[in-house]
């Protein structure tokens, strides 16, 4: 391995550990040292539990040596440090959603994905920063301080899973989990030069994920390669009796499925939606994405223009549905049972007002107010119901396109990483960051962002590939075909 251990991929590190050339403790110590060295500047973590991480790594080494003695094999995540966005519950660890509201809260239970990671032998590593309650596109909305983009510390890493993207980019975690409601995995992945995958809605259990917008939220991996994303997706996917929106479908061995697709030499038909290349797209981003499309053509893919005519309504529909759901989902944070409780409340009503006024930040309040409004008596039909109809039309647009193409290729974000504070005062400009990612959530589709170049100023650019429902293997095969032909992902930020 030419890189430092902390920059290694899951497959490289797993191979080293399998060959007995590396222990999980050595890997964890490398990641820990790196984190201590750089996180003062990156601030990807809200907190981490060093002792707990090393204990998990030791336990992993023990399992591996026992398995070796018994002639058994271990899974590909054994001993791999996987960072967790601070909205994913880990028993005995803080769970804050980067909000004052949950400062000091320790979760008494594991989320389903946490259980699955632990069962796969991964080291559950640290609590990664985000925009408060996953609301934002820059990680500036964290109550505990913004995360910086490792490629330019004056810029944002994207959001809301900015901590997850920055940690994987900066060598502070081999992989990470985030959550994606309107682009919160793909956009920060694009801005930080890592792979970020949002699975099909229902593919991964949401049990133990702090809800922002239940019908849109989905947990997914951040990794340093498409192959690693396939590995991690295979571990966290599957039906869960505790989440009735999770779908009861077999989980394929994604790594093998992708390899089989590659071997088959299938000629991919890729759709380019004209609506995604209009006004507001940064010219350097546009050029890089065009170059990637050309590369696909050289690879033998058939490139077709497709139309997603309702795209222009996506942001509007999204901000109605997501805020409506969040206004209800966040009602539980009231200071009664847990979380922030105002010290000087006079009565129950005052307790709600003061605790919530003190506990929530400005963006969260803005969305709760908007959501409360759109659900109000007399407005429901005009806003919420109409937004749901738009949502159906948007999904229909995609399914119509998929009659002609296997996957759709677009920019992930209209611009590369912007400067901190640049859009903080303008919520609308911030919301438009998700213009290419939101439709995927509304339609419930899988989507992945992969590195596809850099600006002249050295900022990463992401390419989004959008797949068909529950066809993550095809999606990753398409993404992998491009990844093989360049070395964007092997570049690391200078920290």
């Amino acid at each position, binding site marked *: 391995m030419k890189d430092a251990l902390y920059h290694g991929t899951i497959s490289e590190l797993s191979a080293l550990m399998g060959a007995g050339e590396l222990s999980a403790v050595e890997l964890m110590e490398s990641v820990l040292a790196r984190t201590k060295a750089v996180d003062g500047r990156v601030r990807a973590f809200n907190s981490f539990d060093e002792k707990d991480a090393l204990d998990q790594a030791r336990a992993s080494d023990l399992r591996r040596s026992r398995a070796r003695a018994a002639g058994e094999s271990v899974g590909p995540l054994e001993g791999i440090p996987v960072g967790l966005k601070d909205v994913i519950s880990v028993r005995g660890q803080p769970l804050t959603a980067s909000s004052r509201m949950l400062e000091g809260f320790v979760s008494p239970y594991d989320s389903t994905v946490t259980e699955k990671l632990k069962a796969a032998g991964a080291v559950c590593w640290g609590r990664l920063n985000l925009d408060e309650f996953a609301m934002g596109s820059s990680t500036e909305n964290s109550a505990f301080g913004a995360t910086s983009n490792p490629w330019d510390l004056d810029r944002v890493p994207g959001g809301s899973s900015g901590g997850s993207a920055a940690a994987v980019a900066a060598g502070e975690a081999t992989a990470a989990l985030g959550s994606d409601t309107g682009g919160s995995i793909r956009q920060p992945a694009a801005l930080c030069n890592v792979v970020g995958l949002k699975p099909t809605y229902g593919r991964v259990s949401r049990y133990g994920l702090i809800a922002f917008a*239940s019908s849109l939220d989905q947990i997914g991996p951040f990794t340093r390669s498409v192959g690693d994303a396939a590995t991690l997706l295979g571990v966290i996917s599957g039906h869960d009796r505790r989440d*009735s*929106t999770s779908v009861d479908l077999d989980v394929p061995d994604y790594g093998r499925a992708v390899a089989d697709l590659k071997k088959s030499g299938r000629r991919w038909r890729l759709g380019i939606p004209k609506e995604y290349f209009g006004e507001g797209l940064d010219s350097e981003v546009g050029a890089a994405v065009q170059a990637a499309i050309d590369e696909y053509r050289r690879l033998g893919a058939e490139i077709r223009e497709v139309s997603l005519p309702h795209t222009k309504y996506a942001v509007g529909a999204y901000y109605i549905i997501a805020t*409506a759901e969040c*206004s209800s989902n966040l009602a*539980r944070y*009231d200071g009664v*049972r847990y979380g922030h409780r105002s010290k000087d409340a006079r009565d*129950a009503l005052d307790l709600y007002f003061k605790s919530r006024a003190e506990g929530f930040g400005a963006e969260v309040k803005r969305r709760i107010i908007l959501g409360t409004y759109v659900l109000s008596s007399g407005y*429901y039909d005009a806003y919420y119901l109409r937004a749901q109809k738009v949502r159906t039309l948007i999904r229909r647009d995609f399914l119509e396109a998929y009659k002609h193409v296997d996957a759709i290729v677009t920019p992930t974000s209209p611009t590369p990483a912007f400067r901190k504070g640049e859009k903080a005062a303008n919520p609308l400009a911030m919301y438009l960051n998700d213009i290419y990612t939101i439709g995927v959530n509304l339609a419930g589709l899988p989507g992945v962002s992969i590195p596809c170049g850099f600006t002249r100023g050295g900022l990463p650019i992401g390419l989004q590939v959008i797949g068909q429902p529950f066809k993550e293997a095809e999606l990753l095969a398409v993404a992998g075909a491009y990844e093989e032909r360049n070395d964007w992902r092997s570049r690391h930020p200078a920290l």
Partner: protein
Amino acid sequence: MTYEAVIGLEVHVQLKTRSKMFSRVAAGYGEPENTLTDPVVLALPGTLPVMNKEALDKIIKAGLLLGCEIAPLCKWDRKNYFYPDSPKNYQISQYDQPLCRGGSVEIELPGPARNVMGEHRRVALTRIHLEEDVGKLNHGEGESLVDFNRAGTPLMEIVSEPVIRSADEAFSYLTALKTVMVYGGISDCDMEKGQLRCDANISIRPEGQAALGTKVELKNLNSFSFVRDGIAHEIRRQVAVVEAGGSVVQETRDYDGQTGASQSLRSKEMAHDYRYFPDPDLMPVQVGEEWKQRIRSECPELPFDRQRRLQQEFAVPYTITSVLVPDRALCDYFEEAARLSGKPQAAANWIANDLLRELGAAKLPLAESRVRPSHISGLVGLVEGGVILSNAAKEVFIEMFRTGEAPEAVVARKGLKAGADTGEIERWCAEAIAGDPKSAADFRGGKDSAINAFKGPVMRAAKGKADPKRVDETLRRLLAS
């Protein structure tokens, strides 16, 4: 002017399920505070609801028993409001698509006398939907504590059409509804445990007027008699308001059963906007024909249907069926005893009088009775066959109740057989007449009551085993000769 009352009832019934509506934690009553909780019930960050199928079974059963139309899809909505007893600050409920629509409850109005059947009629239902219960606030000195044991218990809301016309009718409706729920094993409907709760919407209008008056919602009617009294009180209050030239204000009022008075809780202007929307955490569930058919096969005969059948099939009078029918187990018990003995009326008398009296005195439920239907049947057979006399039979019953022995065993052990034969009675009577010539002369002289003077000595000689009727006959015959 005479006024007519228009009353609609909203009844909340807790379903008798093992676990809560949306989590695996047990549902129950009387446990230490906050022990029937888990992360889902407490609405900890990240938790999700999962529907309890048993609760759906029970509401489908309730709907089928009451003749409702069952929706093909069970869809869930969120009802948003803040209150400290509500862990999520929204309640998962059913808004625009209740699981059951229509249907009716057959009720019996009070009869002209206690032992005379009253008029029967049907109260139409608007809808029945499923939701989850909230926790309980315990208010203390300067603080309020919340107990979430009840939170998340499956709860059915049964809404009647505004077709109830009096406080008595409301009482009859609740009684009939409760009986059906208990029959179906849907709920125990124990109001003291909060398993059945009732709110009433009441308005009045001049008799003959079609338009409805302004309605008042009456809350906290926490016993059947408080429902009756509270409604009667509210009707009187509204009539008084109107007669005094005022008009009824649309509001919610709180009735205090102890003082018999009510006070305003909130007016229409303060009504909540619940911001209902479909719950995105719960997928709608299909309720197919097969599912409904399975539940239909588990539905018992309705109480009033059963009462009619008992009266026809067994010729048991209303006074007794009205005691037996409300209790499904007691009714099953009766039917078994009636069939075993072939003497339904005698069996019914033993059950409705002696068994219920002894159970009541011993404060025992029927299930713990040592006297089984076979015992009742045996006892009836012994009396009908003349093996024991009716006063001895009472003693046998008491012994059976105490020990659980078969009636034949009690008779044998206590020597209660009506053993005296005709020859013995003849001899004892002759001896008694010979021993009291004066009374014999008095009787023969026309003083009929003089015959009683011989009965004491005869019964003493017979040690109670002689049939008084036969003793009387024998004495008369001997004295006449």
